[in-house]
């Protein structure tokens, strides 16, 4: 019992990405496969997709794996699911592994749903008897009904996904490897799937979970590892690792250089974002207030001055704000000197994503200086799973919609329906 369920010891995977075009290249690659003991000649186009990765996982632990694209997450899962072999290192797995690397991969379009259930079960290493025992449960969960004897190529993509997930989740693997499966299916089924996964986790299954949705990682996982360029950058408590991830992606964002921008006797020295408590930050959570700071210097007095910030998300302007907005007289006469302006973006106003801010200083009639994309910042779904929220990052749209819906059925009970509508009208 004290044995870890998964122990990974200095696992590495080397990919030769050299040109495939020349037959000679392929041949020498072939030879190096034949004699893997021979020393690998490293080319600059080759890649350690995974380098010296070690960790252990106890029974019942739920481990999230996070990292940017190409960090080695998929390679790690592929090795642990035994799809490809590591170049060096070992891993030991105790228990039956069910891997959901992509839902429905074992499905064959020409076979019926029933045949595919048995095929997929066999792929997960179950005997026919075991699958037969679970069969009704699977059909119930998938909501496929009578279509079970129809070839799956006639299924809608939703039905396909539902059946595939139902098979994988109901066949009771002891260790579950999940890669981004929750991004499929319609909302109701996704919710059901989440609940199923949560149940599996509660019932002592060991789970390895990869997702780009940091919110669902925070919600579901007890611990996490952060991969970058094939190496483990951080490992431990899920909150800490998510924090390291936030720091890592903030390094990707462009920093304004120290010298600033100058035009028409105005210098914009620095534009930066801070938390409400004043510390510098470029990655914010949905529930953080964002303070945009601008330090500028006027080398002469300017009458009717206005400073402006335009906030864009994915090249689309979300709003434009003037420092004089709401003033009785929308102008300010400013003396020469240094100024520090702050614009506060309230918490839970912008949804997750990357933002850029353009700043302008001008008068009522002229633009004196304009700095497009002076600053980037990002809002991440760090603490919240936004799967069923208007502001899920992947949805179309740019704001956190504060409204709500009511829907009344009109045809079943006419009186009640009218009553409901009447109420809505007042």
């Amino acid at each position, binding site marked *: 019992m004290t044995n870890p369920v998964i122990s990974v010891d200095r696992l590495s995977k080397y990919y030769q990405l050299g040109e495939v075009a020349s037959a000679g290249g392929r041949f020498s690659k072939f030879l190096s496969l034949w004699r893997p003991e021979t020393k690998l000649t490293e080319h600059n186009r080759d890649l350690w997709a995974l380098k010296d990765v070690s960790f252990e996982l106890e029974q019942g632990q739920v481990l999230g794996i996070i990292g940017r694209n190409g960090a080695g997450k998929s390679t790690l899962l592929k090795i642990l699911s035994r799809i490809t*072999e590591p170049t060096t290192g070992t891993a030991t797995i105790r228990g039956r592994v069910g891997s959901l690397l992509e839902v429905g991969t074992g499905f064959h379009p*020409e076979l019926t749903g029933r045949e595919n259930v048995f095929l997929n079960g066999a792929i997960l290493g179950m005997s026919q008897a075991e699958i037969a025992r679970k069969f009704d449960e699977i059909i119930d969960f998938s909501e496929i009904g009578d279509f079970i004897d129809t070839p799956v190529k006639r299924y809608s993509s939703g039905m396909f996904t539902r059946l595939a997930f139902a098979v994988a989740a109901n066949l009771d693997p002891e260790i579950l490897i999940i890669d981004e499966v929750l991004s499929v299916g319609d909302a109701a089924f996704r919710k059901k799937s989440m609940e199923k996964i949560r149940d599996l986790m509660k019932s002592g299954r060991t789970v390895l979970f990869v997702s780009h949705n940091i919110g669902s990682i925070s919600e579901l996982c007890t611990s996490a590892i952060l991969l970058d360029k094939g190496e483990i950058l951080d490992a431990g408590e899920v909150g800490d690792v998510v924090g390291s991830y936030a720091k890592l992606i903030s390094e990707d964002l462009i920093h304004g250089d120290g010298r600033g921008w100058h035009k028409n006797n105005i210098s914009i020295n620095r534009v930066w974002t801070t938390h409400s408590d004043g510390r510098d930050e470029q990655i914010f959570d949905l529930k953080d207030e964002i303070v945009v700071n601008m330090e500028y210097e006027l080398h002469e007095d300017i009458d009717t001055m206005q400073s402006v910030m335009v906030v864009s998300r994915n090249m689309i302007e979300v709003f434009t704000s003037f420092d004089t907005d709401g003033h009785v007289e929308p102008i300010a006469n400013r003396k020469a000197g240094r100024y520090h302006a702050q614009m506060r973006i309230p918490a839970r106003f912008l949804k997750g994503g990357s933002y850029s801010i353009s700043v302008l200083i001008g008068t009522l009639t002229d633009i004196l200086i304009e700095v497009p994309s002076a600053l980037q910042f990002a809002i991440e779904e760090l603490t919240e799973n936004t799967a069923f929220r208007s502001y899920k990052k992947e949805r179309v749209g740019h704001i956190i919609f504060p409204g709500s819906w009511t829907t009344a059925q009109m045809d079943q009970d006419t009186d009640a329906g009218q009553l409901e509508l009447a109420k809505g009208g007042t």
Partner: protein
Amino acid sequence: MSQQEDLNEVRIYPRTGFSFPDLREISQYKSLMFLLVWREIKSRYKQSYLGALWVIFQPLTMMSVYALFLGYVARFPSEGVPYAVYILCSITCWQFFNQSMTGAGTSLANQQALIGKIYFPRILAPMSASLSSFLDLAILIGLLVVVMAFFGIFPSPNAFMAVGILILIGFFAFSLGLALTVLDAFWRDVRHGLGLVIQIWYFASPVIYPVTLVPERFLHFYYMNPMAPLIQGFRWAVLGGDVSMPPLWSFGSSICVILIAFVIGLTVFQRLERNVVDYL
């Protein structure tokens, strides 16, 4: 309980050198193998009205065309048996060999969607491809029985030996397929080249002509082709009568070649199978 845990413990490490296929694991996956066979068979005749009947059209057409031009017009000898029946025997063998080898030889590349996403012992891919060609063989044999009945020919008392010969042919095709399929994963040239080789091999084997047409002094070399004694042996076992039996030594050499092909095929496969997924 502890034994159960041992069974489920999997060690993942880079294998080096030759590794023998894990027979216990393969037997654990036997239900998957049968499903793969089923999937293969079912998808082969997907959405076709005549389904498996297509299996017999090709040999039936080949038989008719050859019987007309080679048998009737060119007067090919056929060792005292109607020419049509005579060549249907050999076409059955050849079709089985060809289909089985090509199927196994392209199995990894054809199953790449599965191999890239899911683990199973990779040898299951060529195994299931090979096994699925046995169904077509059964249909072909049914056809042969019908055609023999039509011509009023009774099988010879040695017909049971034909079963052994077919198993040898299947095993030979599988052995070649093992090596071909991993090479095919690296170079798709293999499948194109294979078509050419098979064509030449077809004419180097006694499929559409009797062995008696081969000049005596070349017969020694001729029987070194491992397929030659098997096909001629099949005709002899099924038809009996005046059909000549291949010399015993040629069966011996054929079996030797098949065993060598199996060892080489398995070695190549086991050596290259591990990382084939990275190159598919």
